[in-house]
């Protein structure tokens, strides 16, 4: 178990193995997102109340789910970096920040665009929307903190602490629709119950969610590999790699 842990901590090992995974993940992401989009836009039936604007769900829900998962991965990776001084965890945590920020923004924008025809307003200061906005600012804060501190280890420590403190926001987002009166509808998917929609509506949603997660892996691996090169450029294996062409 521990040799596995140490190997995973080795940037060189990760660089090599992730290079092999990357094309497969990219193909999976492309296939899932493409088929999911076609299904979502052209084949899923209209919602009886919302008409076609409900098709926004196929972007909005996966983006919001991913935004929160990405935050949790970033916080956990940051904690691993803090506790075991694992460099690779620091790099992964840093890579998560801008990806997470972009998907949080996507969830907010699609939510606003969906809110207009459904609720009659782009934005309300209700619990779910406000806690998602806070998530976005947390991501931006982490990105800013990374660029403000030039010492890499210090930056990793500071952002990991900020990410861990901000972790309290995640259950707030999750339960905001239950704790407060909100315009936002409750969760579409739960682990214990069958979705309230018919299968021809939720199957493409599931495909999109899987596609978004595969895409996230691709983006995270791409950024982390770059981060490895930038930090390890003095080592002989990176020099060899860069010399190759």
């Amino acid at each position, binding site marked *: 178990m521990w040799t596995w842990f140490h190997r995973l901590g080795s940037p060189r090992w990760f660089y090599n193995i992730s290079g092999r995974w990357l094309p497969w993940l990219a193909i999976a992401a492309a296939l899932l997102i493409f088929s999911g*989009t076609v299904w979502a836009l052209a084949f899923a039936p209209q919602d009886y109340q919302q*008409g076609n604007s409900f098709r926004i769900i196929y*972007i909005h829900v996966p983006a919001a789910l991913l935004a929160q998962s990405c935050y949790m991965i970033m916080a956990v990776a940051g904690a691993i970096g803090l506790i075991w001084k694992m460099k690779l965890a620091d790099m992964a945590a840093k890579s998560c920040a801008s990806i997470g920020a972009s998907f949080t923004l996507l969830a907010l924008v699609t939510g606003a*665009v969906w809110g207009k*025809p459904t609720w009659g307003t782009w934005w309300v200061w209700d619990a779910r929307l406000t806690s998602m906005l806070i998530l976005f600012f947390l991501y931006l804060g982490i990105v800013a903190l990374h660029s403000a501190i030039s010492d890499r280890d210090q930056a990793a420590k500071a952002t990991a602490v900020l990410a861990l403190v901000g972790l309290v926001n995640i259950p707030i987002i999750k339960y905001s629709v239950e704790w407060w009166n909100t315009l936002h509808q409750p969760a579409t998917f739960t682990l214990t119950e069958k979705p309230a929609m018919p299968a021809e509506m939720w199957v493409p949603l599931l495909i999109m969610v899987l596609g978004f997660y595969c895409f996230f892996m691709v*983006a995270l691996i791409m950024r982390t590999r770059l981060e490895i*090169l930038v930090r390890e450029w003095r080592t002989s294996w990176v020099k060899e790699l860069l010399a190759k062409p």
Partner: protein
Amino acid sequence: MSFSSFSDFIHMGGHGLYVWVSYATALAVFVFNILMPLRLRKQFMVEQARQQRREEQNASHS
């Protein structure tokens, strides 16, 4: 198929603008997340090549 014609599909029963803005934003986010690391990687490669040349020059001068 839940649409009878292509213009119906674009129109989305009056919600076309909302739906297409959402999907376009998603596309922009995907493109951003792929292009950013590629661009940064290219910059890093150019920088490294320059560094390499400088070191070689220094080595041949001394």
